[in-house]
């Protein structure tokens, strides 16, 4: 009885802590990554060659990542969808005398990167998600053990739409896939289904 009460409370606190640290970890990561990617875009920007080659640029880089976090209350392998984002501005240019540095606006939404016109003002970003999830749990009893087999199938499609005042925003649709045990979203993975399974045996 005591263990049931204390254990539940402790696990609840634990779930909150894990969720918090996971979010904090990802937020810090995207901030660092956004800055380094902005540096790269600024440093490698060029407009041509010779006199016209304007080395460097002023870059605004926005990184948006969709994640699936551990969710102890959810079904096996489903997780809960979360979004983290960060933006960084870098001016790294040595323009020729009398010229100004180019200005670039980049977005990286999960695995896919795109640039938009520097004069475009994004008013809002809307994300919609379509999730198909099903879980099959099979239990078989033998004279020596109980064998449980759990399979979950998850298909998640996210559409990120940047609405611009002049109508030149962007819309990108991405699907969920797993690489190295981590969930990712990519345009190339639309329609893919992530399948996870586990089997455990309880001997008598």
């Amino acid at each position: 009885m005591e263990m049931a009460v204390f254990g539940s409370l402790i696990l609840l606190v634990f779930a909150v802590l894990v969720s918090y640290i996971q979010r904090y970890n990802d937020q810090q990561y995207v901030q660092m990554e956004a800055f380094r990617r902005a540096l790269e875009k600024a440093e490698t920007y060029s407009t041509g060659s010779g006199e016209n080659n304007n080395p460097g640029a002023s870059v605004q880089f926005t990184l948006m990542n969709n994640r699936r976090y551990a969710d102890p209350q959810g079904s096996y392998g489903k997780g809960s969808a979360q979004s983290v984002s960060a933006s960084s501005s870098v001016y790294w240019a040595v323009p020729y005398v009398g010229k100004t540095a180019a200005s670039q606006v980049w977005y990286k939404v999960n695995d896919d990167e795109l640039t938009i016109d520097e004069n475009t003002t994004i008013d809002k970003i809307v994300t919609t998600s379509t999730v198909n999830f099903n879980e099959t749990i099979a239990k078989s009893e033998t004279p020596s053990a109980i064998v449980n087999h759990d399979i979950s199938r998850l298909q998640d499609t996210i559409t990120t739409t940047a609405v611009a005042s002049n109508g030149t925003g962007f819309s990108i649709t991405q699907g969920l896939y797993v690489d190295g045990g981590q969930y990712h979203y990519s345009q190339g993975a639309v329609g893919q289904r992530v399948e996870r399974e586990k089997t455990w045996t309880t001997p008598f």
Partner: protein
Amino acid sequence: MDHSILRDKKGQATLESAMVLILTILMLGGILHIWFWANGQLVNRQRSYQASRVGAGQSCDGYKLVMWGYHPEALTDYSVILKRQRKSGKAE
């Protein structure tokens, strides 16, 4: 009629609480270790990030994206369970 042999025995609640307290403390210890592991990741990754700043800020031909190359150590049973003794008998 209750035939439990534990009924009306003095100290049962204290005994149960004592046993549960041990398990609770062990569980808290494991949770703390997971927390330290996660916290250590943030600190060590920040250290790698800071160490790679100079390289990331140097312009050169063929400049490539400079990340920090930090790979966190895996969270193992050993990191979670309170400093248990290994089979060899050596404590770590």
